[in-house]
Protein backbone atom coordinates (compact mmCIF):
# COMPACT_ATOMS: atom_id res chain seq x y z
CA UNK A 1 0.00 0.00 0.00
CA UNK A 2 1.39 3.41 -0.98
CA UNK A 3 0.04 6.84 -0.18
CA UNK A 4 0.25 9.41 -2.91
CA UNK A 5 -0.93 12.97 -3.42
CA UNK A 6 -2.35 13.69 -6.85
CA UNK A 7 -0.69 16.71 -8.47
CA UNK A 8 -2.85 16.81 -11.59
CA UNK A 9 -5.10 19.57 -10.26
CA UNK A 10 -5.09 21.87 -7.23
CA UNK A 11 -7.60 19.74 -5.36
CA UNK A 12 -4.62 17.55 -4.37
CA UNK A 13 -6.48 14.30 -3.55
CA UNK A 14 -4.80 11.99 -1.04
CA UNK A 15 -4.79 8.58 -2.75
CA UNK A 16 -3.86 5.04 -1.74
CA UNK A 17 -2.51 2.50 -4.20
CA UNK A 18 -2.23 -1.22 -3.41
CA UNK A 19 0.17 -3.80 -4.84
CA UNK A 20 -2.13 -4.52 -7.79
CA UNK A 21 -2.27 -0.82 -8.68
CA UNK A 22 -5.84 -0.37 -7.41
CA UNK A 23 -6.29 3.31 -6.65
CA UNK A 24 -8.64 4.77 -4.01
CA UNK A 25 -9.19 8.32 -2.72
CA UNK A 26 -9.07 9.93 -6.16
CA UNK A 27 -11.93 12.30 -6.90
CA UNK A 28 -11.71 11.88 -10.66
CA UNK A 29 -10.23 9.40 -13.20
CA UNK A 30 -7.22 11.63 -13.92
CA UNK A 31 -6.00 10.83 -10.41
CA UNK A 32 -6.04 7.10 -11.10
CA UNK A 33 -4.10 7.57 -14.34
CA UNK A 34 -1.59 9.77 -12.53
CA UNK A 35 -1.14 7.26 -9.69
CA UNK A 36 -0.50 4.38 -12.11
CA UNK A 37 1.97 6.43 -14.13
CA UNK A 38 3.69 7.69 -11.00
CA UNK A 39 4.32 4.15 -9.74
CA UNK A 40 5.45 2.78 -13.11
CA UNK A 41 7.04 5.60 -15.13
CA UNK A 42 6.67 9.03 -13.50
CA UNK A 43 6.61 12.04 -15.85
CA UNK A 44 6.56 15.83 -15.48
CA UNK A 45 6.06 18.86 -17.70
CA UNK A 46 9.27 20.93 -17.59
CA UNK A 47 8.97 24.73 -17.71
CA UNK A 48 11.98 27.00 -18.02
CA UNK A 49 13.32 29.92 -20.07
CA UNK A 50 15.64 30.27 -23.06
CA UNK A 51 17.80 33.20 -24.12
CA UNK A 52 16.26 35.56 -26.61
CA UNK A 53 17.75 38.50 -28.47
CA UNK A 54 15.91 41.52 -29.83
CA UNK A 55 12.96 41.30 -27.40
CA UNK A 56 11.91 43.49 -24.47
CA UNK A 57 13.47 41.00 -22.02
CA UNK A 58 16.48 38.68 -22.30
CA UNK A 59 14.52 35.47 -21.53
CA UNK A 60 11.56 33.75 -23.17
CA UNK A 61 9.52 31.21 -21.17
CA UNK A 62 9.21 27.70 -22.68
CA UNK A 63 7.63 24.38 -21.72
CA UNK A 64 7.63 20.79 -22.86
CA UNK A 65 4.47 20.29 -24.91
CA UNK A 66 3.76 17.09 -22.95
CA UNK A 67 5.14 15.45 -19.80
CA UNK A 68 8.64 13.92 -20.11
CA UNK A 69 10.13 11.07 -18.02
CA UNK A 70 11.11 12.40 -14.60
CA UNK A 71 14.67 11.07 -14.84
CA UNK A 72 15.22 13.14 -17.99
CA UNK A 73 14.34 16.48 -16.37
CA UNK A 74 17.95 17.63 -15.98
CA UNK A 75 18.91 16.49 -19.50
CA UNK A 76 15.97 18.49 -20.84
CA UNK A 77 17.16 21.51 -18.82
CA UNK A 78 20.63 21.17 -20.39
CA UNK A 79 19.17 21.08 -23.88
CA UNK A 80 16.96 24.10 -23.14
CA UNK A 81 20.00 25.95 -21.78
CA UNK A 82 21.77 25.65 -25.14
CA UNK A 83 19.07 27.43 -27.18
CA UNK A 84 19.03 31.12 -28.14
CA UNK A 85 16.00 32.52 -29.96
CA UNK A 86 15.65 35.79 -31.75
CA UNK A 87 12.50 37.90 -31.62
CA UNK A 88 9.75 37.83 -32.75
CA UNK A 89 8.53 34.63 -31.12
CA UNK A 90 4.91 33.46 -31.15
CA UNK A 91 3.29 31.57 -28.31
CA UNK A 92 3.27 27.85 -29.16
CA UNK A 93 6.19 28.13 -31.60
CA UNK A 94 8.47 25.06 -31.56
CA UNK A 95 11.82 25.73 -29.91
CA UNK A 96 13.23 22.17 -29.88
CA UNK A 97 11.51 19.53 -31.98
CA UNK A 98 12.28 16.33 -30.09
CA UNK A 99 14.02 17.06 -26.82
CA UNK A 100 16.52 14.39 -25.66
CA UNK A 101 14.84 11.62 -27.65
CA UNK A 102 11.62 11.87 -25.62
CA UNK A 103 9.53 12.51 -28.72
CA UNK A 104 8.26 15.66 -27.00
CA UNK A 105 8.73 19.21 -28.32
CA UNK A 106 9.75 22.26 -26.35
CA UNK A 107 7.51 25.22 -27.24
CA UNK A 108 7.51 28.95 -26.48
CA UNK A 109 5.02 30.00 -23.78
CA UNK A 110 4.87 33.72 -24.42
CA UNK A 111 4.57 36.20 -27.27
CA UNK A 112 7.88 38.06 -27.56
CA UNK A 113 7.42 40.67 -30.30
Amino acid at each position, binding site marked *: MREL*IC*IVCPRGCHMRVDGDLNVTGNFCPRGEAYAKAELTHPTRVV*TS*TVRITGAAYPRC*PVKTAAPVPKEKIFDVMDAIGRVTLSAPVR*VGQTVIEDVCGTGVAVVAAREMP
Partner: protein
Amino acid sequence: MYELIVVGGGPAGLAAACAAWDSGLRHILIVERDRELGGILNQCIHNGFGLTWFKEELTGPEYAHRFIELLARTGVEVRTDTMVLDVTADLRVHMTGPATGYRIERAKSVILAMGCRERTRGAIGIPGTRPAGVYTAGAAQRYVNVEGWLPGRRVVILGSGDIGLIMARRMTLEGAKVLACVEVMPYSGGLTRNIVQCLQDFDIPLYLSHTVTQIRGRDRVEQVVVSRVDEKRAPIPGTEMVFDCDTLLLSVGLIPENELTERAGVEMDPRTKGAVVYENMETSVPGVFTCGNVTHVHDLVDFVSAESQRAGTAAAKYVLHGPAAGESVSLKNGPGVSYTVPQRVRPQNVEKAFNVFFRVNRIFGKSEIVVRARERELCRFKRDRLAPGEMENITVPVKLLEGVTGDVTVEIREV
Protein backbone atom coordinates in the same frame (compact mmCIF):
# COMPACT_ATOMS: atom_id res chain seq x y z
CA MET B 1 -16.09 60.35 -19.40
CA TYR B 2 -15.58 56.58 -19.31
CA GLU B 3 -18.29 54.16 -18.34
CA LEU B 4 -15.67 52.07 -16.55
CA ILE B 5 -12.03 52.51 -15.57
CA VAL B 6 -10.18 49.37 -14.48
CA VAL B 7 -7.09 49.94 -12.33
CA GLY B 8 -4.58 47.11 -12.96
CA GLY B 9 -4.13 44.93 -16.05
CA GLY B 10 -3.45 41.58 -14.37
CA PRO B 11 -5.78 38.61 -14.79
CA ALA B 12 -8.34 40.29 -12.53
CA GLY B 13 -8.47 43.53 -14.53
CA LEU B 14 -8.48 41.69 -17.86
CA ALA B 15 -11.39 39.38 -16.96
CA ALA B 16 -13.36 42.26 -15.44
CA ALA B 17 -12.94 44.46 -18.52
CA CYS B 18 -13.89 41.64 -20.91
CA ALA B 19 -17.01 40.84 -18.88
CA ALA B 20 -18.05 44.50 -18.73
CA TRP B 21 -17.66 44.73 -22.51
CA ASP B 22 -19.72 41.57 -23.00
CA SER B 23 -22.39 43.07 -20.74
CA GLY B 24 -22.75 46.11 -22.99
CA LEU B 25 -20.31 48.81 -21.86
CA ARG B 26 -18.47 50.48 -24.75
CA HIS B 27 -16.25 53.10 -23.08
CA ILE B 28 -13.83 51.12 -20.95
CA LEU B 29 -10.24 51.99 -20.01
CA ILE B 30 -7.65 49.71 -18.39
CA VAL B 31 -4.76 51.49 -16.69
CA GLU B 32 -1.63 49.40 -16.03
CA ARG B 33 1.59 50.71 -14.49
CA ASP B 34 3.78 48.00 -16.04
CA ARG B 35 4.98 47.97 -19.65
CA GLU B 36 2.55 45.19 -20.54
CA LEU B 37 -0.66 43.48 -19.50
CA GLY B 38 -0.77 40.21 -17.59
CA GLY B 39 0.34 41.21 -14.09
CA ILE B 40 2.20 38.73 -11.95
CA LEU B 41 1.42 35.90 -14.41
CA ASN B 42 4.21 37.08 -16.71
CA GLN B 43 6.84 35.90 -14.25
CA CYS B 44 5.01 32.70 -13.20
CA ILE B 45 6.43 30.52 -15.97
CA HIS B 46 5.48 27.24 -14.27
CA ASN B 47 2.36 25.38 -15.34
CA GLY B 48 -0.78 24.75 -13.34
CA PHE B 49 -2.93 27.68 -14.40
CA GLY B 50 -6.30 27.40 -16.08
CA LEU B 51 -7.33 23.85 -15.12
CA THR B 52 -10.76 25.05 -14.04
CA TRP B 53 -11.22 27.92 -16.46
CA PHE B 54 -9.77 26.59 -19.72
CA LYS B 55 -9.75 22.86 -18.78
CA GLU B 56 -6.09 22.86 -19.79
CA GLU B 57 -2.87 23.12 -17.88
CA LEU B 58 -1.24 26.40 -18.92
CA THR B 59 1.78 28.38 -17.78
CA GLY B 60 1.22 31.86 -16.34
CA PRO B 61 2.22 33.76 -19.51
CA GLU B 62 -0.01 31.48 -21.63
CA TYR B 63 -2.98 32.10 -19.34
CA ALA B 64 -2.41 35.85 -19.56
CA HIS B 65 -2.07 35.57 -23.34
CA ARG B 66 -5.50 33.92 -23.64
CA PHE B 67 -7.12 36.86 -21.88
CA ILE B 68 -5.07 39.45 -23.76
CA GLU B 69 -6.35 37.88 -26.99
CA LEU B 70 -9.95 37.99 -25.75
CA LEU B 71 -9.43 41.64 -24.85
CA ALA B 72 -8.00 42.42 -28.28
CA ARG B 73 -11.35 41.42 -29.80
CA THR B 74 -13.13 44.11 -27.79
CA GLY B 75 -12.84 47.87 -28.08
CA VAL B 76 -11.44 48.26 -24.57
CA GLU B 77 -8.81 51.02 -24.42
CA VAL B 78 -5.53 50.19 -22.67
CA ARG B 79 -2.95 52.57 -21.19
CA THR B 80 0.20 50.76 -20.09
CA ASP B 81 3.17 52.39 -18.40
CA THR B 82 0.62 54.51 -16.56
CA MET B 83 0.25 54.56 -12.80
CA VAL B 84 -2.96 55.41 -11.01
CA LEU B 85 -2.20 57.75 -8.12
CA ASP B 86 -5.63 58.38 -6.71
CA VAL B 87 -9.26 57.38 -7.05
CA THR B 88 -11.73 59.72 -5.40
CA ALA B 89 -15.17 58.82 -4.05
CA ASP B 90 -16.76 60.89 -6.86
CA LEU B 91 -14.97 58.58 -9.34
CA ARG B 92 -12.18 60.75 -10.67
CA VAL B 93 -9.12 58.69 -11.47
CA HIS B 94 -5.76 60.47 -11.23
CA MET B 95 -3.00 58.90 -13.30
CA THR B 96 0.43 59.65 -14.66
CA GLY B 97 2.69 58.13 -17.33
CA PRO B 98 5.29 59.17 -19.88
CA ALA B 99 2.82 59.05 -22.80
CA THR B 100 0.03 61.18 -21.35
CA GLY B 101 1.56 63.04 -18.40
CA TYR B 102 -0.64 63.75 -15.39
CA ARG B 103 -4.32 63.25 -16.19
CA ILE B 104 -7.60 63.08 -14.39
CA GLU B 105 -10.24 60.90 -16.04
CA ARG B 106 -13.85 60.70 -14.88
CA ALA B 107 -15.79 57.45 -14.83
CA LYS B 108 -19.25 56.16 -14.05
CA SER B 109 -17.74 53.11 -12.36
CA VAL B 110 -14.29 51.94 -11.25
CA ILE B 111 -12.90 48.44 -10.73
CA LEU B 112 -9.88 48.19 -8.45
CA ALA B 113 -7.67 45.25 -9.49
CA MET B 114 -4.20 46.20 -8.22
CA GLY B 115 -3.18 42.73 -7.01
CA CYS B 116 -0.89 42.28 -4.02
CA ARG B 117 2.73 42.62 -3.02
CA GLU B 118 5.06 40.49 -0.98
CA ARG B 119 5.71 40.93 2.67
CA THR B 120 9.36 41.84 3.14
CA ARG B 121 11.90 40.93 5.72
CA GLY B 122 11.32 44.20 7.61
CA ALA B 123 7.78 43.07 8.26
CA ILE B 124 8.95 39.95 10.07
CA GLY B 125 12.20 41.20 11.64
CA ILE B 126 14.90 38.54 11.60
CA PRO B 127 17.84 39.26 13.93
CA GLY B 128 21.40 39.37 12.58
CA THR B 129 23.41 41.32 10.05
CA ARG B 130 22.01 42.90 6.88
CA PRO B 131 24.15 41.43 4.10
CA ALA B 132 23.28 41.13 0.41
CA GLY B 133 21.61 37.90 -0.66
CA VAL B 134 18.23 38.26 1.05
CA TYR B 135 15.42 38.47 -1.49
CA THR B 136 11.68 38.01 -1.52
CA ALA B 137 10.81 34.89 -3.49
CA GLY B 138 8.82 36.92 -6.00
CA ALA B 139 11.75 39.26 -6.68
CA ALA B 140 13.97 36.22 -7.24
CA GLN B 141 11.31 34.81 -9.55
CA ARG B 142 11.46 37.93 -11.66
CA TYR B 143 15.28 37.92 -11.76
CA VAL B 144 15.45 34.29 -12.88
CA ASN B 145 12.43 34.09 -15.22
CA VAL B 146 12.33 37.52 -16.83
CA GLU B 147 15.75 39.12 -16.43
CA GLY B 148 17.69 35.86 -16.70
CA TRP B 149 20.13 35.81 -13.79
CA LEU B 150 20.41 33.48 -10.82
CA PRO B 151 20.46 35.33 -7.48
CA GLY B 152 22.48 32.63 -5.66
CA ARG B 153 23.96 29.12 -5.61
CA ARG B 154 23.15 27.78 -2.14
CA VAL B 155 19.70 28.73 -0.97
CA VAL B 156 17.51 28.55 2.13
CA ILE B 157 13.84 29.46 1.79
CA LEU B 158 11.88 30.93 4.69
CA GLY B 159 8.15 30.37 4.39
CA SER B 160 6.33 27.66 2.49
CA GLY B 161 3.98 29.84 0.46
CA ASP B 162 3.49 28.82 -3.17
CA ILE B 163 6.01 31.33 -4.53
CA GLY B 164 8.72 29.94 -2.23
CA LEU B 165 7.93 26.35 -3.23
CA ILE B 166 7.88 27.19 -6.92
CA MET B 167 11.22 28.99 -6.57
CA ALA B 168 12.76 26.02 -4.72
CA ARG B 169 12.18 23.93 -7.84
CA ARG B 170 13.08 26.67 -10.26
CA MET B 171 16.45 27.46 -8.62
CA THR B 172 17.20 23.72 -8.38
CA LEU B 173 16.53 23.26 -12.10
CA GLU B 174 18.84 26.20 -12.86
CA GLY B 175 21.67 24.52 -10.96
CA ALA B 176 21.42 26.03 -7.48
CA LYS B 177 21.34 23.87 -4.37
CA VAL B 178 18.27 24.47 -2.22
CA LEU B 179 19.18 23.30 1.27
CA ALA B 180 15.90 23.69 3.10
CA CYS B 181 12.46 25.22 3.16
CA VAL B 182 11.61 26.46 6.65
CA GLU B 183 8.03 27.11 7.83
CA VAL B 184 7.12 28.58 11.22
CA MET B 185 3.62 27.10 11.24
CA PRO B 186 2.96 23.37 11.79
CA TYR B 187 1.50 23.19 8.26
CA SER B 188 2.56 24.48 4.86
CA GLY B 189 1.15 27.74 3.52
CA GLY B 190 1.22 26.45 -0.05
CA LEU B 191 -0.76 24.01 -2.13
CA THR B 192 -0.13 20.34 -1.37
CA ARG B 193 0.63 19.66 -5.03
CA ASN B 194 3.47 22.18 -4.82
CA ILE B 195 4.98 20.43 -1.78
CA VAL B 196 5.01 17.23 -3.84
CA GLN B 197 6.23 18.50 -7.20
CA CYS B 198 8.57 21.26 -5.99
CA LEU B 199 10.12 19.87 -2.78
CA GLN B 200 9.65 16.08 -2.69
CA ASP B 201 10.54 15.62 -6.37
CA PHE B 202 13.95 17.16 -5.65
CA ASP B 203 14.47 15.83 -2.09
CA ILE B 204 14.39 19.32 -0.57
CA PRO B 205 13.61 19.04 3.14
CA LEU B 206 10.64 20.98 4.58
CA TYR B 207 11.07 21.95 8.24
CA LEU B 208 7.64 22.69 9.71
CA SER B 209 7.45 24.54 13.06
CA HIS B 210 10.91 26.02 12.39
CA THR B 211 12.11 29.52 11.64
CA VAL B 212 15.24 31.44 10.71
CA THR B 213 16.63 32.91 13.93
CA GLN B 214 19.80 34.51 12.61
CA ILE B 215 21.39 35.67 9.38
CA ARG B 216 25.20 35.73 9.34
CA GLY B 217 27.59 37.33 6.88
CA ARG B 218 29.24 40.71 6.38
CA ASP B 219 28.79 41.67 2.72
CA ARG B 220 26.93 38.60 1.52
CA VAL B 221 24.86 36.00 3.37
CA GLU B 222 27.25 33.26 4.61
CA GLN B 223 25.07 31.29 7.00
CA VAL B 224 21.57 31.20 8.35
CA VAL B 225 20.57 29.67 11.66
CA VAL B 226 17.30 27.75 11.83
CA SER B 227 15.58 26.82 15.10
CA ARG B 228 12.52 24.83 16.05
CA VAL B 229 9.65 26.84 17.54
CA ASP B 230 7.16 25.97 20.28
CA GLU B 231 3.35 26.23 20.05
CA LYS B 232 3.60 29.99 20.61
CA ARG B 233 6.03 30.24 17.69
CA ALA B 234 8.92 31.14 20.04
CA PRO B 235 12.32 29.62 19.07
CA ILE B 236 13.43 26.75 21.32
CA PRO B 237 17.06 27.22 22.50
CA GLY B 238 19.33 24.27 21.74
CA THR B 239 17.54 23.30 18.51
CA GLU B 240 19.70 25.47 16.21
CA MET B 241 20.82 24.13 12.80
CA VAL B 242 23.34 26.10 10.76
CA PHE B 243 23.16 26.17 6.96
CA ASP B 244 26.07 27.44 4.84
CA CYS B 245 24.38 29.41 2.08
CA ASP B 246 24.69 32.60 0.05
CA THR B 247 20.99 33.33 -0.39
CA LEU B 248 17.86 33.52 1.74
CA LEU B 249 14.52 33.74 -0.04
CA LEU B 250 11.51 35.03 1.86
CA SER B 251 8.11 33.62 1.03
CA VAL B 252 6.28 34.92 4.05
CA GLY B 253 3.00 36.02 2.58
CA LEU B 254 1.29 38.51 0.36
CA ILE B 255 -0.53 41.71 1.25
CA PRO B 256 -3.26 43.19 -0.94
CA GLU B 257 -2.12 46.50 -2.38
CA ASN B 258 -4.89 48.74 -1.07
CA GLU B 259 -3.52 52.26 -0.61
CA LEU B 260 -5.79 53.53 -3.40
CA THR B 261 -8.79 51.70 -2.00
CA GLU B 262 -8.32 53.18 1.45
CA ARG B 263 -7.80 56.69 0.12
CA ALA B 264 -11.03 56.38 -1.86
CA GLY B 265 -12.79 55.97 1.49
CA VAL B 266 -13.80 52.34 0.91
CA GLU B 267 -14.67 50.33 4.04
CA MET B 268 -11.90 47.77 4.67
CA ASP B 269 -11.89 44.32 6.26
CA PRO B 270 -8.97 43.81 8.67
CA ARG B 271 -9.16 40.04 8.12
CA THR B 272 -8.65 40.03 4.34
CA LYS B 273 -6.81 43.40 4.29
CA GLY B 274 -9.03 44.13 1.30
CA ALA B 275 -12.31 45.95 0.82
CA VAL B 276 -15.56 44.78 2.36
CA VAL B 277 -17.55 43.60 -0.66
CA TYR B 278 -21.11 42.64 -1.53
CA GLU B 279 -22.09 39.52 -3.51
CA ASN B 280 -21.34 41.36 -6.78
CA MET B 281 -17.88 42.60 -5.65
CA GLU B 282 -19.19 46.14 -5.04
CA THR B 283 -17.57 48.07 -2.19
CA SER B 284 -19.10 50.50 0.31
CA VAL B 285 -18.50 53.36 -2.18
CA PRO B 286 -21.22 53.32 -4.89
CA GLY B 287 -19.80 52.45 -8.30
CA VAL B 288 -16.49 51.16 -6.96
CA PHE B 289 -15.86 47.41 -7.31
CA THR B 290 -12.81 45.28 -6.49
CA CYS B 291 -11.64 41.83 -7.57
CA GLY B 292 -8.62 39.53 -7.57
CA ASN B 293 -5.71 39.58 -5.17
CA VAL B 294 -6.42 43.14 -4.06
CA THR B 295 -9.65 41.87 -2.50
CA HIS B 296 -8.21 38.74 -0.87
CA VAL B 297 -5.13 36.68 -1.71
CA HIS B 298 -5.98 33.86 -4.11
CA ASP B 299 -3.93 30.70 -4.76
CA LEU B 300 -5.53 29.99 -8.11
CA VAL B 301 -5.92 32.38 -10.96
CA ASP B 302 -9.02 30.51 -12.20
CA PHE B 303 -10.93 31.80 -9.17
CA VAL B 304 -9.54 35.27 -9.81
CA SER B 305 -11.01 35.18 -13.31
CA ALA B 306 -14.40 33.96 -12.07
CA GLU B 307 -14.61 36.58 -9.35
CA SER B 308 -13.46 39.34 -11.70
CA GLN B 309 -16.03 38.43 -14.30
CA ARG B 310 -18.69 38.94 -11.66
CA ALA B 311 -17.21 42.36 -10.85
CA GLY B 312 -17.18 43.35 -14.54
CA THR B 313 -20.75 42.23 -15.11
CA ALA B 314 -21.87 44.04 -11.96
CA ALA B 315 -20.14 47.28 -12.96
CA ALA B 316 -21.93 47.16 -16.32
CA LYS B 317 -25.26 46.55 -14.61
CA TYR B 318 -24.58 49.49 -12.28
CA VAL B 319 -23.82 51.84 -15.18
CA LEU B 320 -26.68 50.66 -17.42
CA HIS B 321 -29.42 49.97 -14.88
CA GLY B 322 -28.49 51.86 -11.71
CA PRO B 323 -27.43 50.76 -8.24
CA ALA B 324 -28.32 47.33 -6.85
CA ALA B 325 -31.16 47.41 -4.35
CA GLY B 326 -32.10 45.53 -1.25
CA GLU B 327 -31.25 44.93 2.39
CA SER B 328 -28.10 42.97 3.11
CA VAL B 329 -27.18 40.22 5.51
CA SER B 330 -23.63 40.02 6.88
CA LEU B 331 -21.51 36.90 6.55
CA LYS B 332 -19.47 36.19 9.69
CA ASN B 333 -16.67 33.72 10.26
CA GLY B 334 -17.54 31.16 12.91
CA PRO B 335 -15.16 28.64 14.54
CA GLY B 336 -12.49 27.35 12.16
CA VAL B 337 -12.94 30.05 9.52
CA SER B 338 -10.65 33.07 9.24
CA TYR B 339 -12.58 35.22 6.75
CA THR B 340 -15.29 35.18 4.11
CA VAL B 341 -15.61 36.99 0.76
CA PRO B 342 -18.14 38.46 0.18
CA GLN B 343 -18.75 39.90 3.62
CA ARG B 344 -22.28 41.05 2.72
CA VAL B 345 -25.05 39.60 0.57
CA ARG B 346 -28.19 41.32 -0.76
CA PRO B 347 -30.57 38.41 -1.43
CA GLN B 348 -32.65 40.61 -3.78
CA ASN B 349 -29.63 41.06 -5.99
CA VAL B 350 -28.90 37.33 -6.38
CA GLU B 351 -30.59 35.27 -9.04
CA LYS B 352 -30.18 31.69 -7.87
CA ALA B 353 -27.15 31.23 -5.67
CA PHE B 354 -24.11 33.10 -4.44
CA ASN B 355 -20.50 32.03 -4.00
CA VAL B 356 -18.60 32.33 -0.75
CA PHE B 357 -14.80 32.10 -0.69
CA PHE B 358 -13.12 31.53 2.66
CA ARG B 359 -10.05 30.12 4.37
CA VAL B 360 -9.88 27.86 7.42
CA ASN B 361 -7.52 28.71 10.28
CA ARG B 362 -5.96 25.28 10.79
CA ILE B 363 -5.85 21.84 9.14
CA PHE B 364 -9.08 19.86 9.43
CA GLY B 365 -9.65 16.20 8.60
CA LYS B 366 -13.09 14.96 7.51
CA SER B 367 -15.39 17.83 8.30
CA GLU B 368 -18.52 19.75 7.43
CA ILE B 369 -18.86 23.38 6.49
CA VAL B 370 -22.01 24.60 8.22
CA VAL B 371 -23.85 27.77 7.23
CA ARG B 372 -26.34 29.02 9.82
CA ALA B 373 -28.46 32.05 10.69
CA ARG B 374 -28.30 32.32 14.47
CA GLU B 375 -29.18 28.78 15.59
CA ARG B 376 -30.99 27.80 12.39
CA GLU B 377 -28.87 25.70 10.04
CA LEU B 378 -29.21 26.73 6.39
CA CYS B 379 -26.99 24.18 4.68
CA ARG B 380 -23.86 22.09 5.09
CA PHE B 381 -21.10 20.86 2.80
CA LYS B 382 -18.85 17.83 3.33
CA ARG B 383 -15.07 17.96 2.86
CA ASP B 384 -12.41 15.26 3.31
CA ARG B 385 -9.75 17.72 4.26
CA LEU B 386 -9.43 21.48 4.73
CA ALA B 387 -6.17 23.42 4.94
CA PRO B 388 -5.36 27.14 5.40
CA GLY B 389 -3.15 27.05 2.30
CA GLU B 390 -6.07 26.12 0.06
CA MET B 391 -8.94 28.55 -0.38
CA GLU B 392 -12.39 27.00 -0.05
CA ASN B 393 -15.47 27.92 -1.97
CA ILE B 394 -19.16 27.07 -1.45
CA THR B 395 -22.29 27.95 -3.43
CA VAL B 396 -25.33 28.82 -1.33
CA PRO B 397 -28.83 28.85 -2.91
CA VAL B 398 -30.31 32.27 -2.21
CA LYS B 399 -33.76 30.92 -1.33
CA LEU B 400 -32.25 29.62 1.92
CA LEU B 401 -31.89 33.24 3.02
CA GLU B 402 -35.66 33.82 2.97
CA GLY B 403 -36.73 35.38 6.24
CA VAL B 404 -33.14 35.74 7.45
CA THR B 405 -32.17 39.10 8.92
CA GLY B 406 -28.89 39.99 10.55
CA ASP B 407 -25.92 37.68 10.44
CA VAL B 408 -25.14 34.44 8.64
CA THR B 409 -22.23 32.40 10.02
CA VAL B 410 -19.91 30.00 8.23
CA GLU B 411 -18.16 27.50 10.50
CA ILE B 412 -16.28 24.20 10.38
CA ARG B 413 -17.24 21.10 12.35
CA GLU B 414 -14.89 18.16 12.35
CA VAL B 415 -16.77 14.84 12.10
